[in-house]
């Protein structure tokens, strides 16, 4: 195995371009699981550990190297809430937002927030920069359009409302991979966006449910019931070792409604 640790972003992009099929290494919390289980043997590892450029974070930008431990202190309530549900303190100290994007698990905890906020993923390579909306970036379970020579450098966040909620269903409180996850953002005029994880090949938006919730500033119980019903109808879950499609469909409606109710308080 070849291991390189570039000291600056430009050097990292050069390294990614120079090798055939390089593996970027950020916090290691996904990659090393695969390595330890002998599922993966990377030939070339490009460490991102020394790249301070990736750790920049402000209101409109989160660098790929920002850890979930830092994101626990986010001003965005949903972002702070989701960060606290990632793994354990040990995992959050190492795991990064860029890693969550690169792994692109349908259960990635940051993805519902990024999808609800209509974030753009920014990729760089020696050939230039690509700026892709979240739904252009994720194309399937653990599949993105990132080329091997490209590095995820961060996400751009458009302005988003203060009323936000993240909710996740799992088999226990800590150290859990989601069975359903959900983020709701609602602005003062009532416009609502709802994104769900673990209930489709990639994170998805429930646009029919968004229409129902967006129609009024004050929502009635009937509206909330219709919202819940539509979320359950719009998700595309499968049955796997963590849960059944039937349970996920039901739970998606329930958690989405709860998240919306939190935004209404």
């Amino acid at each position: 195995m070849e291991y390189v640790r570039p000291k600056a972003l430009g050097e990292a992009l050069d390294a990614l371009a120079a090798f055939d099929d390089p593996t970027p290494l950020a916090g290691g919390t996904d990659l090393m699981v695969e390595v330890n289980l002998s599922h993966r043997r990377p030939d070339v590892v490009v460490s991102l550990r020394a790249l301070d450029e990736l750790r920049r974070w402000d209101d409109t930008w989160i660098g790929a190297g920002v850890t979930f431990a830092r994101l626990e202190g986010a001003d965005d309530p949903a972002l702070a809430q989701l960060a606290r549900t990632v793994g354990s303190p040990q995992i959050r100290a190492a795991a990064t937002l860029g890693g969550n994007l690169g792994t692109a698990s349908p259960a990635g905890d940051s993805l519902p927030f990024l999808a609800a906020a209509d974030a753009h993923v920014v990729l760089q390579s020696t050939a230039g920069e690509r700026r892709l909306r979240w739904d252009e970036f994720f194309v399937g379970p653990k599949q993105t359009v990132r080329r091997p020579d490209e590095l995820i450098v961060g996400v751009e966040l458009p302005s988003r409302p203060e009323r936000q909620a993240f909710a996740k269903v799992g088999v226990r409180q800590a150290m859990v991979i989601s069975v359903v996850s959900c983020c709701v953002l609602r602005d003062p005029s009532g416009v609502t966006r709802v994104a769900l994880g673990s209930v489709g090949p990639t994170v998805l938006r429930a646009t029919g449910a968004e229409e129902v919730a967006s129609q009024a500033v004050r929502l009635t119980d009937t509206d909330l019931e219709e919202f819940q019903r539509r979320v359950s109808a719009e998700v595309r879950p499968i049955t796997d070792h963590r849960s059944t499609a039937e349970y996920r469909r039901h739970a998606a409606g329930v958690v989405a409604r709860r998240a919306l109710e939190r935004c209404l308080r």
Partner: protein
Amino acid sequence: MIVQLTVNGEDRHAEVAGWESLLWVLREDLGLTGTKGACEQGECGSCSVILDGEVVCSCLVMAADADGADVTTVEGLGTPEDLHPVQEAFVAEGAVQCGYCTPGLVVAAAHLLETNRRPEPDQIREALSGNLCRCTGYGAVLRAIEAAREAM
């Protein structure tokens, strides 16, 4: 490649061939077997160490990527003659059943009390949420950490 580390205040080095984890290097190359390995997926916390000031699962740190880092293992917290307050409290409270998870719990608890001198009970639980004890001995562990908090 040669990996240079500061482990428990001493300069150490190890030759790594490829994908070995920091856990492997600590145990197999440096003989520091206090740090345990179990799940190797970051779920159990038995391999917890302090790496550059943060508690991490050493099984998920590629040893090559730890080159130049400062590592504290359970061996670096106290000695049999001069136990760390957390270790003393674990002994006093009998916060050990089979003992396999104990080093990871002690490292996580020691780090908590070094970064937050007055943790609330829920903060203690949160700090230990990545350390599994399958003997289900958490009650005594929580009492021990509260006792250590008072002693420190």
